């Protein structure tokens, strides 16, 4: 069983929701990525999404664009992201790491080389924003063969046919983009999310994580009440940006604690929390 599956099964057994933070690798500086990842785990992360910086992050809002630019300026690269995961894995055998990024750096490395290197480094899943399932059948096959979960997005605009395409290609979990827009936007429609999640879960048969637009304990709690996992990205990058020098790791840790507490206060749908 994959690390991602193991995590979701354990959480489900405990009636808890997964907390999936996102950080851009190499931001605010490459040396801080590993301490930040450890702080995320300490703060209650169940899975870590690690952003692979790209020069043209078409699906990202200003916050994550800035983070990618800063990371690239400091020489971050896909190879260095994999080195970081390897270092993280040396001290943590349980927490799944999902790489999130764009197709071109992966294609530049070569799909075969990438999946082999990622698997060897201890990566668990890969979400390529600009790879819809129909354009990456070779990648999906190679990833699965190497023990990596290919993770796909669904959106408010997705049709049932899209659910089926994603169900056939994806594993690990589904990332439901909770709004039309880019990362960091603020237009979260919780009722819409609540209506869609059961449909997706039924059609796809995988846990559903919701992301884009979740910014605080309150929105996390409300999304967590309907989804299997809550993904928080831009808000964590903002915490890092706003932290006084030397305090980014502590700020992120404290923020994670607040979200974890909100998620753990959700009553399981099946009964009263014991």
């Amino acid at each position, binding site marked *: 069983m994959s690390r991602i599956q193991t995590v979701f099964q354990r959480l489900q057994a405990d009636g808890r929701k997964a907390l999936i933070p996102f950080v851009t690798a190499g931001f605010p500086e490459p040396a801080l990525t590993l301490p930040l990842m450890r702080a995320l785990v300490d703060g209650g992360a169940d899975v870590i999404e690690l952003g692979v910086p*790209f*020069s*043209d*992050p*078409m*699906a990202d*809002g*200003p916050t994550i*664009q800035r983070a990618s*630019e800063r990371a*690239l300026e400091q020489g971050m*690269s*896909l*190879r260095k992201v994999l080195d970081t995961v390897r270092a993280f894995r040396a001290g943590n055998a349980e927490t799944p790491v999902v790489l999130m990024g*764009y*197709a*071109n*750096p*992966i*294609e*530049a*490395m070569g799909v075969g080389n990438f999946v082999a290197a990622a698997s060897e480094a201890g990566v668990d899943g890969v979400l390529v*924003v*600009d*790879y*819809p399932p*129909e*354009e990456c059948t070779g990648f999906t096959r190679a990833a699965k063969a190497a023990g990596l979960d290919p993770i*796909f*997005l*669904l*959106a*408010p*605009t*997705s*049709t049932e046919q*899209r659910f089926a395409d994603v169900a056939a290609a994806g594993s690990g979990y589904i990332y439901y*983009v909770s709004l*039309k*827009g*880019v990362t960091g*936007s603020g237009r979260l429609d919780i009722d819409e999310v609540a209506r869609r999640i059961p449909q997706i879960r039924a059609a796809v048969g995988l846990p559903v994580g919701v992301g884009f637009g979740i910014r605080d304990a309150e929105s996390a709690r409300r999304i967590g009440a309907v989804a299997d996992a809550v993904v928080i990205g831009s808000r964590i990058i903002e915490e890092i940006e706003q932290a006084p020098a030397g305090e980014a790791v502590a700020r992120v840790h404290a923020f994670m604690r607040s979200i974890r507490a909100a998620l753990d206060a959700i009553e399981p749908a099946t009964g009263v929390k014991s």
Partner: protein
Amino acid sequence: MEFDKQMADMPYQFPDASGHFGPHGGVFVAETLMPALAELREAYAACQADPTFMAEFEYELKHYVGRPSPIYHAKRWSETLGGAQIYLKREDLNHTGAHKVNNCIGQALLARRMGKQRVIAETGAGQHGVATATIAARYGMECVVYMGSEDVKRQAANVYRMKLLGATVVPVESGSKTLKDALNEAMRDWVTNVADTFYIIGTVAGPHPYPLLVRDFQTVIGKECLVQMPEMAGRQPDYVIACVGGGSNAIGIFHPYIGAEGVRLVGVEAAGDGLETGRHAAPLTTDAPVGVLHGNRTYLMQDEDGQIIETHSISAGLDYPGVGPEHAWLKDSKRAEYVAATDAEALQAFHDLCRYEGIIPALESSHALAYAAKLAPTLPRDQILLVNLSGRGDKDMHTVAERSGIQF
């Protein structure tokens, strides 16, 4: 009309149903846009099958743009060069001054059919932005144009033109602050406002069906040439030459000639400071690695880590790290050849056309002229080069003057 029959029989069938030109093209976008692109494919298919759509498009091209654009025999320049005869397809005479408007009208009509009241566009030099703003004014649509903040500074006159036409111009501060970043930002707008917004892409790039529909709207250029060349010169040309940024003016004139054996198709990229300096915008000529950007797979200027690198060209309209996927395929299949002209060569051709023919060409088009000027003297006088003069140079006055050390 033997020729037309040959055209009709041609086996060239690209893109395939899923938008691929061999290994190139495709639909590489985030999930949110997949349904919008499916909707666009369906709407476009319906329009293609609807004679009233094509009739409206043709009416606009005739009465608003001023088509057909003439072909002009540049006799004095050809004489000076002392070889093949150079003919110019005069897209510079179109309303708004370039070929871009053909495509804008097609897409705006499509937007209207789809009930979208807001159009957005990316622009580099500002030509596509001006053409989009023009058509939006013509049809009473809201128009937002994304433009890299570096380009906003360099192209102040076009920014003002767009504003006069009622468009909102949004400077883009991310990345290299040029065309590719404007495209990223337009995509972000589209993802966010996909329900009521139509994205008018300015070249034959982007996710399927854009490379297909932009091509179709631009092939009016080559179709006119098929009829005009026999009238002008008694036959079809030996070479068809066009500059390649994203590749829309080139595909517009090449496509109707693809099935015409014996007609060589030559795309001219921007060699900037020189191919050997690395400061250029010539992914095809330099055999750049194939990758994924802006929704399609194609040759892309990138570093070893797959990050897109900054390009350099005197002409903002050619300053793009990728190229439309159909050109990638025409290169692979060897049906077209790709070469490059430097800034200096393009400027020389720019000045020559001004002096010998009384035509001020766009700097983009000057790259095609530069290659024609190089090729013509190597060929006999009875050979014919047809060059797509994709736009006029009014917008480039500032750039050219600056290069000559002149301040207005």
